[in-house]
């Protein structure tokens, strides 16, 4: 029998799209591609590290990879998840014939859509960072592990600042090493010109032979030399050539800003590049992206024990006070016993410095905020209920049909 030709007229596009998205073949193709992407992404973690592989393979619409030495364009995990979600909503919930016999499958598909939606919410809205405190210190500020932003601030005579102009991390980190971009802002009496941003770099004295691989300008006896990106993204220390230009004519005060000048211990202060324009002292630095949590955490005591004779930690835990306005709550944060409050989870993550003595060490908490952190659990519950309903329906159906067959055989 000859097939009917496809009607490609624009008026028929909605129908074509609906047919495409509700197709069982699309679901099958997506599952096959997801298997391939998962395999490639997992293997890539060995060379590229966890974070870089996650971004390239699973948080992308498309990516290119070499398969048997041939570059191939493949759909990324994000695109596949979106197509699968639409396919399941349209194909398994909307298009499917609604019958009581199919109620269980309907519920279980709803559970799977919840799981996919949870993944999207996590990707779009979840944050993770850390807070490090010495005993007696308190903070409501969480810092990113791997996102860096440019901060410029006026300094008073004591080297303190109350307000900062910030070039956000998304914008800063999108600048290429050979690219120039200029920025200005209300109240900022000069243009900020970025002459190249490097994701991982080291300032090297020009007296050293190692500086010869740096293509950038020499400033104050240093060149910024790009380094290979680390597998662990949080270990990268970016750098940038920056100029502060009062009149916008392309000249101005030039500096190399490097992430290594920021603080790596909660007890130390960052070292900005100081410069003066129109008699006002300013500071500029690359700083970790940071955000507030709606309460303060004060570290009262950090308990740290090592195994005898070796440097390996045996146990470490923190006694903290959570401060919400006038209300103070004392609690402990231990390994596997996080503090959950107001949507944030504080895990006991690490400590430092590594040569510190008990009583003189800081405690570091991983701080996660994921609006969908319980969704996988609930989606599995819903899916399980759906499959149980389906199992019961099929069982009853089987028993009824068996009885009918038996009755029919008896009668004949």
């Amino acid at each position, binding site marked *: 029998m000859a097939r009917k030709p*496809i009607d490609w007229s624009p008026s028929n596009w909605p129908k*074509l*799209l609906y*047919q*495409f998205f509700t*197709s069982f073949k*699309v679901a099958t193709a997506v599952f096959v591609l997801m298997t391939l992407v998962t395999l490639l992404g997992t293997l890539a973690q060995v060379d590229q590290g966890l974070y870089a592989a996650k971004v390239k393979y699973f948080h992308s*619409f498309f990516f290119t990879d070499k398969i048997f030495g041939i570059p191939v364009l493949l*759909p990324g995990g994000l*695109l596949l998840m979106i197509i699968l979600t639409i396919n399941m909503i349209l194909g398994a919930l909307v298009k499917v014939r609604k019958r009581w016999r199919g109620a269980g499958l309907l519920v279980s598909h709803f559970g799977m859509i919840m799981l996919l939606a949870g993944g999207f919410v996590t990707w779009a809205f979840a944050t993770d960072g850390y807070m490090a405190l010495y005993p007696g210190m308190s*903070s*409501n*500020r969480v810092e990113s592990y791997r996102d860096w932003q440019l901060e410029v*601030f006026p*300094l008073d005579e004591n*080297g*303190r*600042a*109350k*307000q*900062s*102009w*910030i*070039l*956000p991390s998304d*914008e800063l980190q999108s600048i290429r090493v050979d690219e120039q*971009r200029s*920025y200005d*802002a209300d*109240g900022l009496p000069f243009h900020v010109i970025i002459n190249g941003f490097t994701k991982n770099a080291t*300032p*090297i*004295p020009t*007296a*050293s*032979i*190692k500086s*010869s*691989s740096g293509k950038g300008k020499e*400033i*104050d*006896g*240093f060149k910024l030399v790009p380094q290979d990106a680390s597998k662990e993204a949080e270990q990268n220390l970016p750098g940038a050539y920056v100029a502060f230009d009062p009149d916008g004519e392309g000249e101005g005060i030039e500096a*190399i800003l*490097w992430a290594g*000048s920021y603080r790596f211990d909660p007890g*130390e202060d*960052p*070292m*900005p*590049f100081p410069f003066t324009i129109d008699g006002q002292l300013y*500071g500029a630095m690359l700083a970790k992206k940071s955000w507030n949590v709606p309460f303060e955490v004060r570290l009262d005591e950090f308990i740290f024990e*090592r195994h005898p*004779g*070796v*440097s390996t930690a045996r146990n470490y835990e923190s006694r903290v006070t959570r401060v919400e306005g006038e209300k103070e709550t004392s609690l402990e944060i231990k390994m596997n016993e996080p503090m959950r409050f107001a949507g944030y989870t504080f895990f006991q993550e690490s400590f*430092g*410095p*590594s*040569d510190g003595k008990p009583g003189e060490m800081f405690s570091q908490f991983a701080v996660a905020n994921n609006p969908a952190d319980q969704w996988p659990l609930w989606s599995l519950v819903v899916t399980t209920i759906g499959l149980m309903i389906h199992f019961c329906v099929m069982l009853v159906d089987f028993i009824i049909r068996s009885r009918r067959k038996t009755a029919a055989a008896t009668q004949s």
Partner: protein
Amino acid sequence: MRFLPSFILLTTATMLVSCGDSGPSGAQIVTRELPGSHQSFRLVDSSAERFRYQKRDAATAAGATPASTAPDLVYTTPEGWKEQAGSMMRDVNLTFGDNDEGECYVARLPGAGGGLLANVNRWRTQMGAEALTAEEVEALPKKPLFGQPATFMTVDGDFSPGMGSTEVKKNHRLLGLILASEAGAVFVKMTGPKELVTENEAAFDVFTSSLDVSLN
């Protein structure tokens, strides 16, 4: 057959939609109030200080005789490592571990310092391992030292330090980096209990990659 054309249509449309430019520069700068814990800064006088370059001449700082007339060295001391007094043979002398049972030193010698093969096998002998052939030494991995590819070696065994000592240290590991040329030889040697050295392998890389000659 309807599946394939639809798939191509959708894929092309999605690619076109997702291929956007991140855009040129604009007024993306925002302001924020700094919290109390982020209001103080350390203002330093020089870029060298801001980039954490500090002259650390361990030998002279500890009151010992400088190892040679070669230029002073600058380097990053990994977290948890301690500087010790240098000696006639050691330009930099560091220890690590709870009881300073791990050590790492840098030695510089004029000329080839006896050659690569002899030094690799001297260190292997100290660990009770068999000597390597010239081809095997040639095939050892390389790591950067002073911007040059240096020969990297790892040996496990029972460590006999020599130099008058008869002590044999069981289950140790040695990491070595040798840069030998007619212009001079540089040796970086790290030894200690195997588990401790394994824990500090990344710190060894941090230390060796930071080594440089002083600006002064």
